């Protein structure tokens, strides 16, 4: 993947942080702690590209999406949209920005107002931004949008409950497209859908990307979907980026033990391959983001740490001391643009994956 010039960068996120305060008390609420939902994430999204964001539940993916669309305000860090910092913007300016970034939701059943017709849902963008379409042409614009996402434009007056999950997701996409955005944040857009419908929606997203030159930030659980649609992949763990690079780099030259564990959990359709690659099973739950582990956040569940510790003769805890004390930074791997945050990144591929 050649590095695009700076002008191609649509969205740049620098060291973004979002802490939620934990408050106690009935009358006088005092802050007793912080949930570190997003803790220093940096991303770059280029025109017409898809950045896949993967990670377990609770890794901060959805919080990141909310920060990017401006529903939540970041604690610190910068969000640059086409080179303009938007994190400290006022309401009116943010309103204009919102036309650039739109959001596709996970659950098509809660993302559409049940008391508004499809025409009202999709056309609401024009009521909010009167300059997006002239008054007389709004119905026509809504019909075109419905046609664009593969729905019958004559169903304008129907209500969401009269549509299936896949059709509802298309309505959600049409609503987002109404303001002519350049970036779509897709927050697990297909995980609530039937597998056969997933394919249709993914294909629709790809078609729209080709036709409209959209950039996607594609958040997903399903690695095979991410691999299919993404040009760049970022792996998140407990609010931090574990590894980032092109899809080939992250999926085939994995340099972080957590990404490796995720990849090994992808079901293989070929039974002969299945026997040769045993999945790495991570033990325990994701630690609480209110009290993340010291040093490397992954060291409490890392499968590589005991191997390295055994080789180097550690202090008997089964974890190299550097892992539990020093927070690893994202470091350049062999290929350009491939970054991984692991002290022993070089050992990830050399170690047998099927190690017991």
């Amino acid at each position, binding site marked *: 993947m050649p590095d695009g010039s700076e002008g191609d960068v649509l969205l740049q996120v620098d060291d973004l942080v979002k802490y939620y305060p934990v408050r106690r008390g009935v009358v006088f609420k005092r802050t007793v702690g912080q949930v570190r939902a997003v803790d220093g994430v940096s991303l770059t999204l280029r025109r017409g590209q898809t950045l896949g964001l993967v990670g377990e539940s609770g890794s901060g993916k959805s919080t990141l999406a909310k920060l990017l669309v401006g529903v939540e305000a970041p604690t610190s860090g910068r969000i640059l949209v086409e080179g303009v910092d938007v994190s400290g913007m006022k309401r009116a300016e943010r309103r204009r920005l919102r036309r650039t970034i739109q959001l596709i939701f996970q659950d098509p059943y809660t993302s559409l107002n049940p008391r508004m017709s499809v025409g009202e849902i999709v056309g609401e963008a024009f009521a909010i931004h009167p300059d997006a379409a002239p008054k007389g042409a709004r119905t026509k614009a809504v019909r075109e949008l419905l046609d664009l996402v593969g729905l019958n434009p004559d169903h304008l007056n129907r209500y969401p*409950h009269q549509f299936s999950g896949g059709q509802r997701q298309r309505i959600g996409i049409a609503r987002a497209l109404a303001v002519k955005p350049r970036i779509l944040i897709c927050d697990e857009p297909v995980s609530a859908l039937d597998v056969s419908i997933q394919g249709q929606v993914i294909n629709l997203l790809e078609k729209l990307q080709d036709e409209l030159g959209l950039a996607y930030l594609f958040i997903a659980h399903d690695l095979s979907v991410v691999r299919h649609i993404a040009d760049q992949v970022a792996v998140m763990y407990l609010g931090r980026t574990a590894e980032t690079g092109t899809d080939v780099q992250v999926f085939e030259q994995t340099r972080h033990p957590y990404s490796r564990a995720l990849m090994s959990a992808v079901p293989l359709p070929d039974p002969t391959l299945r026997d040769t690659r045993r999945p790495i099973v991570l033990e325990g739950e994701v630690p609480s983001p209110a009290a993340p582990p010291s040093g490397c956040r992954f060291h409490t569940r890392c499968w590589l740490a005991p191997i390295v510790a055994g080789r180097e003769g550690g202090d008997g805890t089964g974890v190299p001391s550097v892992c539990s004390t020093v927070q690893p930074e994202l470091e350049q791997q062999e290929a350009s643009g491939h970054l991984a945050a692991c002290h022993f990144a070089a050992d990830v591929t050399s170690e047998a994956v099927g190690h017991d």
Partner: protein
Amino acid sequence: MSDQTVQVLITEEQNPEEGRGGGSIWGDAFRTLRRRPEVIIAALVALFFLVVALFPKLFTSQDPQHCDIADSGIPPQGFGGAHPFGTDITGCDMLAGVVYGARPSLLLAFIVVGLSVLIGVTLGTLAGFYLGWVDTIISRAVEVFLVIPLLLAALLLLSLFHGAETSGVLGSILQPALVLTLFGWMGYTRYVRANVLETKNLDYVVAARVLGASDLRIMVRHVLPNAIGTVTALVPTAIAGVIGTEAVLAFLGIGVRPPAVSWGILISNGSERFAAGSQYLLLFPLGCLVLTVLAFVILGDALRDALDPKLK
């Protein structure tokens, strides 16, 4: 098959959805309601009493104020007689009383419920939407008003202003209307606040925010329509409750004041004579009240069901 039949079939095939669910939510609701006989009967009863309240002259030629002591205590004579519903102890015509009493009773009920809903929905939405100090102030106010007993407060306030000069139907019900509204809005506030809390974090509200919708638009277009369901169900029962409370206030002598008549006053007067053999003095106004209340309760329940998209 004739050409015309074919044409009809083709049209039906092309618009299979027209009949079910092509229109608005209200259109759908109307179609559902139309098919329920108890709803039609309730609507007719409610309509009848509305007409009585609006045009009392259509139903009686007597003046409720014109009482002849010589005609005192005439039992019901049936339609055809001079006093179809009989007369009370002071010789006032009962039919005229019931007919002219409908307007103050219903007007009071609509004013009180209308104002209470307006205040309750506004405050409840603001409290649930913004939370923080707005919610603290509104919620504490709700609690303060809830712990004051209505009758105690009504007695105090209404006796304070008992001497004030009033005129006309509106004047005679103004004081009870204000007092009942003052202690009637809290329920709606609580219901709406709870529903808004539930609704405001749903994805479609976030979607509207992402599109750049203003707080007002989000509240009016997205949050309220989905949070107001329980309130539409409360309104008919509340109308019934207000007419009932008005009767209690009249019974205590602090409600709608004579010489104006209301169902509450008639019930209160009639109940004094109930044991003395003049049961009709109580039964006629009470029957009207029960019928009106029942009609509104049935309408309210049916309307709530018909407007809920989840019940389709």
